[in-house]
């Protein structure tokens, strides 16, 4: 098992700082997700780890070895690309065998390993086809098999599910996770999809503007966001943020409930919630409105059970339990007090 570590890793393209002094250490066999909006530097970070880009500053260690300056092939890493990057003119067999051929492994061992990887991923029937004859999901498996076949120390995955349709994506997510758990190789997974990140990551590194805003388990980044960026980037709908002299008060929509439903021993903070619109979603109801006494342009969303009786256009007494309130500094956006830890 191998640990990935970066120290003060920085990458500049001209005047743009794509990756800005990142210190990140994985644990052994971890499924680590890099999550962030497009342009936040997550793919650049992954390419730095792979050796496809050279860092401007900082160090990369994989399994305790300094990797700076080493070409990708010597890093014992495998990477799956967003487009899968299969070689279109080669059969599936030749695609999977390509890294082995490059290593100069004899034909028989090549064939054995290709069959082993193909069977593991359930694509052994397609070995003689070409990539264009395969569906998106099958191509993704070929890309995984090609990555797996050299038994790498680290897997790097760059949005490997984003080219699949929604239904296939859910299934592929399960498969990918089961596959990673099965082989137990340390994996870094890049995505902009928070549902993927929450569902798959052992830990999530939330990135923005080339920095890691927070590194933690899905529960941590969701319940205890380190700043207002993480608070609004994670969760759909996002955390409600109310500006209140020098502070920002944050609470999740599902924790914003009719006051009558919150037991008194939870010491709720109460608000007058003016509901503009209710949205019925089957299992829940989303209430869109604003809170009296705060900036009237600040939209607030509550997620309540369908059976809660709430009238559109009326003002209701809503509250948030003391343990569910989060406070942020209004100037920096950083979390300033614990609440629950």
């Amino acid at each position, binding site marked *: 098992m191998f640990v990935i570590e970066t120290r003060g890793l920085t990458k500049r393209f001209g005047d743009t700082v794509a990756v800005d002094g990142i210190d990140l250490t994985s644990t052994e066999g971890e499924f680590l997700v890099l999550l962030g909006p497009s342009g936040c530097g997550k793919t650049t970070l992954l390419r730095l780890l792979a050796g*496809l880009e050279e860092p401007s500053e900082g160090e990369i260690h994989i399994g305790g070895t300094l990797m700076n300056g080493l070409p990708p092939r010597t890093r014992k890493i495998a*990477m799956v690309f967003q487009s899968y*990057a299969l070689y279109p*003119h080669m059969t599936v067999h030749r695609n999977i065998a*390509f*890294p082995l051929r490059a290593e100069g492994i004899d034909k028989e061992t090549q064939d054995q390993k290709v069959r082993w990887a193909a069977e593991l991923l359930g694509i052994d029937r397609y070995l003689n086809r070409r990539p264009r004859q395969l569906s998106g999901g099958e191509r993704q498996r070929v890309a995984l098999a090609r990555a797996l076949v050299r038994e790498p120390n680290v897997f790097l995955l760059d949005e490997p599910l984003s080219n699949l349709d929604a239904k296939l994506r859910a299934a592929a997510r399960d498969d990918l996770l089961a596959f990673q758990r099965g082989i137990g190789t340390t994996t870094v997974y890049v995505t902009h999809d928070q549902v993927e990140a929450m569902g798959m990551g052992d830990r999530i590194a939330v990135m923005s503007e080339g920095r890691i805003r927070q590194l933690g388990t899905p529960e941590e980044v969701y319940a205890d966001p380190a700043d207002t960026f993480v608070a609004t980037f994670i969760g759909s709908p996002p955390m409600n943020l109310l500006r209140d002299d020098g502070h920002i008060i944050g609470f999740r929509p599902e924790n914003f409930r009719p006051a009558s439903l919150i037991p008194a021993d939870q010491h709720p903070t109460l608000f007058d919630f003016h509901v503009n619109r209710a949205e019925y979603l089957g299992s829940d109801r989303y209430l869109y409105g604003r809170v009296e006494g705060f900036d009237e342009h600040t939209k607030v969303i509550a997620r309540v059970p369908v059976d809660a009786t709430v009238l559109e256009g009326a003002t209701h007494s809503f509250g948030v339990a003391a343990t569910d309130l989060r406070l942020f500094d209004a100037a920096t956006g950083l979390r300033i007090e614990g609440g629950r830890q």
Partner: protein
Amino acid sequence: MSEQAVADAPEQPPPVRARRHLLDNERFLAFGAMTPAVVYILALVGFPFVLAVVLAFSDVTVGDPSLDLVGFDTLRQVVADPVFWQSLRNTLVFTLVSNGLVVVLATALALILTKNFRGKWLVRFLVLLPWTTPVSLATITWLWTLDSIFSPIDWVLRQVGLIESNVIWLGHPKLALASVIVVHTWRIVPLAAVIIMAGMISIPGEIRDASDIDGARFWRRTLEIEIPLMAPIIGVAVLFGVILTVTDMTVVYVLTRGGPTNATQVLSSWAYFKGIEGGDLAQGAGTALFLLPVLIAVAALILRFARRRDVL
């Protein structure tokens, strides 16, 4: 839709009256857009082609311009001439060798020019230069460079001590053909290199990255990934190269005028000498007509090849 929803919907703008403008009429547009091209092709390709076919089956000469159809007599005379066969052989050698060289050199050039290095724009500019120079002027430069007395190549070779007296490049049958081939290769390489470069740039970056990750080094990546992926584009470059070579007579005309003793005579130059300079329009047209099946076959072959290798 409920009444409430109808009342809430934004007011619809009044329907615009459909105007039947001539430029919105697709049939008219299609006709109008194609007509210039069709007229152009009919006037400059179709008419001369038909004329050439008619002339090839006649006995028209400059001295006797009346059109008398003589069937296959003219074509029989054309193939009875040993110079015709020598021209055909030279055309094949000229085309195959120069295009073989073009493919190898242009691919190598494209590989170099897609890399990043200092002064790349200058090198790219210099490489393109032969293509931008008018062919006749460029060939005249070569004529001087290969001159029997003043050739700078000979001078350098003499100074280095490799030769004692001038080589006389254009005076020796084999050397003359080689010179024609080299000059023509020099001329076509830039075009082919640019076409192949475009193909190389169109290979997705992730494919190249993947081959890096998979441990491929320069030769494996070039031979197993890049060149196979560029095969259709290289095919197109060859198509252009072959057509430009088979139909070209400028290089031969300026450098050697087909000599010495027809050693560099190609079909197009032979057709010109027969038909225009010799005044036998019928035989000239007949000779030129022999290029047609070659060109059709090459075009069909390479287009088919390009479609089959359309892999991405």
